[in-house]
């Protein structure tokens, strides 16, 4: 796995009218090691997952998820938000080791 995987983000529209619903699809390469598997010597492989995902539009939190090991590798999330003002759509994946993967798109609202 690359040290800093680049997330793939797609908005179903780049321009929206106020109040319109925008759909976001987000995918990031991540092993999501559950911490329940053992290696061939019988030692538990330490847990390493994305434990939290957030989406902020113009610094305002519109959607968040707390993830558990039961989320598949390369976590995929699809969700929606209500367009209210133009600005950056910032998606953040929080890793167990404290690191973050950040992706950004833009929405323009008229």
């Amino acid at each position, binding site marked *: 796995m690359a040290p800093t995987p680049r997330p793939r983000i797609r908005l179903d529209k780049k321009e929206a009218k106020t109040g319109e619903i925008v759909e976001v699809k987000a995918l990031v390469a991540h092993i999501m090691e559950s911490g329940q598997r053992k290696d061939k010597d019988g030692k538990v492989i330490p847990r390493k997952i994305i434990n939290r995902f957030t989406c902020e539009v113009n610094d305002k939190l519109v959607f968040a998820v707390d993830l558990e090991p039961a989320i*598949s590798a390369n976590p995929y999330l*699809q969700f929606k938000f209500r367009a209210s003002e133009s600005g950056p759509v910032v998606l953040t994946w929080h890793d167990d080791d404290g690191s973050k993967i950040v992706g950004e798109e833009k929405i323009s609202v008229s």
Partner: protein
Amino acid sequence: MTVTVSRRDALVLGGVAAVAFAIGSASPAFAKNDSAELIKAFTGGKEPATGKITLDLPEIAENGNTVPLAFSVDSPMTEADHVTDVLIVAEGNPRGGVATFHFSPASGVAEASTRIRLAGTQNVIAIAKTNDGAVFMDTKQVKVTIGGCGG
């Protein structure tokens, strides 16, 4: 007319039998699943009503490593009446927790989808909580051909 069993029904019944055998032999490994505790902590002990929330999962998942899950909650998502959280638990995984989704009126609609791991055939439960504390639940059983927790 005589009672006929369609090809589809026959297949489903066969599948159920096979799967029942599979869990029968494997269930001791999943003895400690904390789903009930998680649900209780989430609802504050309140009994969830059915309706409002719709959980969508395949009836049969060939690969438990990546099972598509989607849900939607019927809510106007206004300041006065909106969904705040949705808890997903899997009763047959080594641990019950799958994910907790957080919404606000800015979400516009309370729906999302992702892909989850299922260790075997089991029930998946989604519970939605609204801003006034009401809780709603939906349950789906998924038949898993190959479990998704390694080992």
